[in-house]
C-alpha cells in the first residue's frame, strides 16, 4: 500500500500555507498519496481572482518574501502535476464564502465534505497547517 498523507490546510498565514505546499509537493513527488483539504482562512487563496500572496505570520514569513521561494500555488500545482496529489475545497467553507465550485482555481479537484476527507485519510497520516 502506498504511503498516504492527508493535509488539512486551514491557516491564512503565509508560512503555514507555504509549509503545507512544501509538504504536499515533496511527499507527492516521492510517491506518497497526498490529499489536501483547504478550509477556513486558507480557502480564499484558492478562489479565482484572489491575490496570490498571504500575509506573513511572523518574521520568517517577512524574510521569505525577499527570497526566491517558490509560490505556494505553484507548489500545490506541482504536487498535482508531478505526484498526482488531490486538492479539495471544504464544502462548508465554500458555502460560508458564497463561492460556487466553478469559482475555484482550475487545479483544484472540487468541493469535498470533511467526513469524506477524514474517512479517506483514516489509514494514513493527517497533518494540520
Amino acid at each position: 500500500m502506498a504511503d498516504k498523507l492527508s493535509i488539512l490546510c486551514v491557516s491564512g498565514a503565509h508560512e503555514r500555507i507555504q509549509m503545507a505546499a512544501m509538504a504536499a509537493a515533496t511527499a507527492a513527488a516521492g510517491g506518497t498519496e497526498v490529499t489536501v483539504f483547504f478550509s477556513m482562512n486558507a480557502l480564499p487563496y484558492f478562489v479565482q481572482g484572489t491575490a496570490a500572496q498571504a500575509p506573513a505570520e511572523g518574521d520568517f514569513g517577512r524574510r521569505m518574501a525577499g527570497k526566491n521561494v517558490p509560490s505556494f500555488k505553484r507548489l500545490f500545482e506541482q504536487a498535482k502535476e508531478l505526484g498526482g496529489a488531490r486538492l479539495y475545497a471544504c464544502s462548508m467553507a465554500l458555502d460560508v464564502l458564497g463561492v460556487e465550485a466553478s469559482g475555484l482555481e482550475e487545479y483544484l479537484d472540487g468541493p469535498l465534505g470533511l467526513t469524506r476527507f477524514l474517512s479517506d485519510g483514516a489509514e494514513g497520516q493527517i497533518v494540520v497547517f
Partner: protein
Amino acid sequence: MGDDKVKVVDATGSFCPGPLMELIGQLKEMEVGDVLELLSSDKGSAADVPEWVNKVGHEMVGTEEKDGVWHIRVRKLK
C-alpha cells in the same frame, strides 16, 4: 561516462523545494538512461535530491560543490 547525454538544469537562486521540483519536472521529459545535472545553490538540495532519487529508483551519478553551487547528477532509470 563520456558519451552520456547530459541535460543541465540551472535552479540556482531557488529555495527548497524549488530545485527538487525543477529536477522532477525536467526528468519526466527525458529518456531512460539520460543524465540530468541539477545546479542548486540551496544547501538542502544536496541532501534532499539523493533522498528522492533513491526513494523513487533513479541513480545518483555524483554530487560536487563548486563555489557555493551544488552540481547534482542523476541518471533516469525508469
